[in-house]
């Protein structure tokens, strides 16, 4: 059932007091790959990371790494590297001492050589004898990564590793991490609430909400084929319109627009649904079109070669559309426009009950 490589999380439940924060969480991290746990704050992504690290013991479920069950193994014997939120560097020790902290069992010369190799890896050679508080945020983050990698861990866990850094620095360090990951090839689990960060660093995303795994997949799979309304709205923007199923492949939106899908939907006629579309899959027209939703034009924002358009449907639903700037009409504020969805890229979910 379990393969012998990589990290496997199976049916993990956990509660704090009487509040259950993890519900039957399962996912795999293939050997040497980066997986990002992605979700809004409070979705349980940090809790599952702490469970993997052994900082909490889950109520139920198993966590195994390279075929070994870790569930009953103590934190210090798990041989995992962890990068903490805000880095948790030891401020009374130098950078070199921080990195050497997990190497107490090695002979002195070996320890020194290893610390030097890691300082080189994270490009902090000149800072070996500095104290962490005197370093910039980006340098501190690299010390934290080096310290976690020093013990040659079987996997690397990172809790919001870029959260404490400003935006410009983030992109640079994300690229740095990808480079290092290519060098080291270590199985990595990263927790983040930032979808761009997750997509930039990880090959596989685990989208979580409310203590549950909503979807596991590559960034493309998750963007193109969201498994739930939550995922659809959390990763990228999703316009949501209430509709009713009229037949196989037929929908009628709340304002009466008939939409003919080019595929059958798995709902019985009459079922209330929420139909979603990406902004870039809507086209704008100032004339009536069959299958287009009528809306009131609010404003357009120039985004490079695109125009991002805000419009409002008759029932008050706000809709965003992204169209090429060069072609197409430029309506006035308040003018009536028609938005035609690319019906092959629409998603249909049961009517919105737990909002995204």
């Amino acid at each position: 059932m379990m393969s012998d490589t990589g990290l496997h999380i199976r049916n993990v439940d956990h509660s704090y007091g009487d509040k259950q924060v993890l519900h039957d969480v399962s996912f795999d991290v293939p050997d040497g790959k980066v997986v990002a746990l992605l979700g809004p704050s409070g979705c349980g992504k940090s809790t599952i990371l702490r469970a993997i690290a052994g900082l909490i013991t889950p109520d139920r479920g198993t966590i195994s790494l390279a075929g070994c069950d870790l569930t009953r193994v103590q934190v210090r014997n798990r041989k995992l590297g962890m990068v903490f939120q805000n880095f948790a560097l030891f401020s009374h020790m130098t950078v070199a001492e921080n990195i050497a902290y997990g190497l107490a069992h090695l002979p002195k010369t070996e320890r020194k050589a290893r610390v030097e190799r890691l300082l080189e890896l994270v490009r902090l050679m000149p800072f070996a004898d500095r104290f962490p508080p005197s370093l910039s945020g980006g340098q501190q983050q690299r010390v934290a990564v080096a310290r976690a990698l020093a013990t040659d861990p079987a996997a690397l866990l990172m809790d919001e590793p870029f959260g404490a850094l400003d935006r410009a620095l983030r992109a640079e360090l994300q690229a740095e991490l990808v480079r290092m990951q290519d060098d080291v090839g270590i199985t990595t689990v990263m927790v983040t609430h930032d979808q761009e960060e997750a997509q930039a660093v990880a090959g596989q995303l685990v989208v979580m909400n409310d203590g549950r795994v909503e979807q596991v997949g590559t960034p493309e799979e998750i963007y193109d084929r969201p498994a739930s309304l939550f995922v659809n709205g959390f990763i990228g923007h999703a316009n949501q319109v209430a509709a009713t199923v009229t037949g196989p492949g037929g929908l009628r939106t709340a304002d009466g627009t008939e939409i003919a899908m080019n595929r059958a939907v798995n709902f019985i006629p009459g079922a209330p649904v929420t139909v979603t579309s990406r902004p870039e899959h809507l086209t704008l027209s100032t004339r009536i079109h069959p299958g287009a939703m009528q809306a009131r034009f609010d404003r357009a924002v120039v985004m490079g070669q695109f125009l991002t358009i805000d419009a409002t449907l008759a029932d008050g639903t706000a809709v965003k559309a992204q169209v090429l700037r060069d072609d197409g009409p430029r309506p006035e504020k308040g003018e009536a426009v028609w938005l035609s969805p690319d019906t092959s890229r629409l998603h249909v979910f049961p009517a919105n009950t737990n909002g995204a």
Partner: protein
Amino acid sequence: MLDTRAKFSTALYWVFVWGCGLLVLAFMIGPILLALVMSFNSGSTLRFPPEGFSLRWYEMLFDPIASGPIHTAAKNSIEVALSTVALVTLITAPAAWALARAPKRFSGSVEPILLAPLVLPSLVYALAALLALSLLGLGPSFIAVLIGHAAVFAPLMFRTVLGLAQRQNPALEEASETLGASRIRTFLRISLPGILPGIFAGAFLVFMQSLDNVSVTLFLGDPGRTMLPLRLFAMLEESLDGRVAAVSGVLILAAAILLVVLQRFGARDAR
């Protein structure tokens, strides 16, 4: 109109700040300076203004034949103070560290109890302790003074350590554990350095308080063992002995040196 009012209130503000500030300084520093000046008096009794400058009181104070009882009293007091510091450190440092990690609801209700001795007059405590001792059939002794001082002054160190322990990021200890360190190594290398400045600050406070405490020492102390504050009282009662001022001078110097050392230590650690 508004302008004059603003000016008036600014003036009032400065009068208040400077006035009160100077008053506080006068009351705190004044007596200390006075004692220092009197300790260098060349006259034959404690007197202000001094009749001339001399080191005669210091010479007499350090003379083992003339001031033997004072030396013994000082030695006894320092013994008690150091033992108190050691005992208090052993009890409060782990207690404060553990309480900082306890659930909020628990620590919130325990903390006021542990700090209670601070608001209890030590005279009341000393009297109660003496009664309790005699009920147990025990008399005043070194151990009784030690325990009395520890009970009354422990909250001083508890406070200084708790403050630091609560501010310490729990992720530091978690990081240490994920790096393979044992609980003991984590405490010694990560937790302890974090609370060490609090232990030093607390030790200083406890030492000073223990050294010049009268009430607990008076009630619980072995009458055969004189202690420094009691000895000083006795000397003042017998005659206006200038050596009392000289003892103050020595204590002030010692406190000042200790404070500077502590400041240096704190500054190095805050880096």
